[in-house]
């Protein structure tokens, strides 16, 4: 299975390698989707991890032990169905094809393949899409 996490670091552990821990100790497949480091050494990364669920859970406990803040990401892109009028403007700006239209031409979001890039947010004319990280 695939899970996404937000991992927060600071000056004390910014030079450490979370992906190394995930690969070497747990044989998982991490993919860093987004990362930033501020001038004071603090920052966050969004990482997608593929592997068995129990292994992912144990691996994340280990990442916490070595000093990172780990926050699982669920519904990180939020679509307000009361606001959305299914125009479709967001569909073609999504790089992972996570937004599409169903058989009735209503806009739908596949939350699991969304990589939280935020490209759709400013394509929406009614502020129905929000990135919650």
């Amino acid at each position, binding site marked *: 299975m695939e899970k996404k996490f937000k991992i927060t670091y600071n000056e004390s552990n910014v030079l450490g390698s979370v992906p190394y821990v995930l690969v070497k100790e747990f044989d998982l497949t991490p993919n860093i989707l987004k990362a930033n480091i501020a001038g004071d050494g603090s920052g966050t990364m969004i990482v997608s991890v593929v592997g068995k669920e129990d292994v992912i859970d144990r691996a994340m406990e280990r990442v916490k032990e070595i000093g990172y803040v780990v926050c699982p990401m669920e519904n990180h892109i939020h679509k307000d169905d009361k606001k959305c*009028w*299914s*125009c*479709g*403007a*967001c*569909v*073609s*700006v999504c790089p992972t094809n996570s937004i*599409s*239209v169903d058989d*009735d*031409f*209503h806009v739908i979001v596949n939350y699991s393949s969304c990589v939280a890039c935020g*490209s759709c947010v*400013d*394509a929406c*004319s*009614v*502020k129905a899409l929000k990135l919650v990280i």
Partner: protein
Amino acid sequence: MAKTYEEINEKIRSKRAVVYTAEEIIDIVKKKGIEKAAEEVDVVTTGTFGAMCSSGAFLNFGHATPPIRMTDIRLNDVPVDGGLAAVDTFVGATSLTEDPAKGYGGAHVIEDLVAGKSIHLHAWGPGTDCYVRKDIDTHITLDDINEAYLYNPRNCYQNYGIATNTSGRTIYTYMGKLLPRMKNATYSSAGQLSPLLNDPHLETIGMGTHIFLAGGEGYVTWQGTQYKTNVEEVNGVPIGGCRTLALIGDMKQMNAKYLRGLDITGYGISLAIGVGIPIPILNKDILQRCCISDDQIFAQLTDYSLPTGRKEMARYSYAELRSGSIEYEGKKIRTSSLSSYSGARAVAGELKSWIEDGDFELNKPVLQFPKTAKLKTLTEDWL
């Protein structure tokens, strides 16, 4: 066998009218054949639900005691027109608050009024011998004011272009967010459901045509602005923006579901309106034209990174556009609709049920719109 408006209305009144949407009629005619279908079917309903900037509302607030002649008027901080009579105004859809970051404009005022929300009215006037008051600060709702008419100088564009971006940076346009190097393309027509693509030469649509406007009843009042006829046709319909309609309707009957204020990033405010037009099946030629389907309607791809002189790069059918991607010189380009096709379906479906229930009759236009028209352009004074 030809039918008359009166024969169709007689069937509507007795709830016997046979009505299909412009989408449903395609298969009905394939199954029954044009002759039989033309005899059986009385009305085809069309629908569209997209952005139209050329929209607004005429309002009359009623007089305060003592009265004021308003010349500077704000509704929820949106400046609206002070150039009409004392307590009349026109709310232009694209009018914006002083702080554009709010993303709130005239279109949102119109949506909020129809949704029944309370609107802050702040107005000033010069103070005259007959209108002594100089300012008023109050709140209004749609129920509190005398008249509220939605008015579109232009709506129901008969087809429109496809936008892409060949430049190296993302551009934000009224055709939506266009990613660099042709990563995506956008289009806006409802295609096979769109009113003027089902009656391409306006045989049945003209001044006085009774329509569905944002959930209420409305009428076609005139040809729309930027009306033209000199556009290439394929399969009997134009391949670009062509004829347009001016529309009016009573806001007090409307439903905010079909009237949405839009904040289009980098462009500004617009108003999405659900419009449905019934087409009376007076003869089989009119029905034949209602059978047009997305694979027979084409539009032109143009480059919106160019400030002017956007030439046709390629043309695609709405069936291709709606498939999710098109191909240009071997490269796949993902597509987005900018108008709500599910909304257009809902409009055509609701109008259909009004007619089937005997609540909505059709009328013959009192004036036909021009058979030929060209656009003029604006030139600068020689510097």
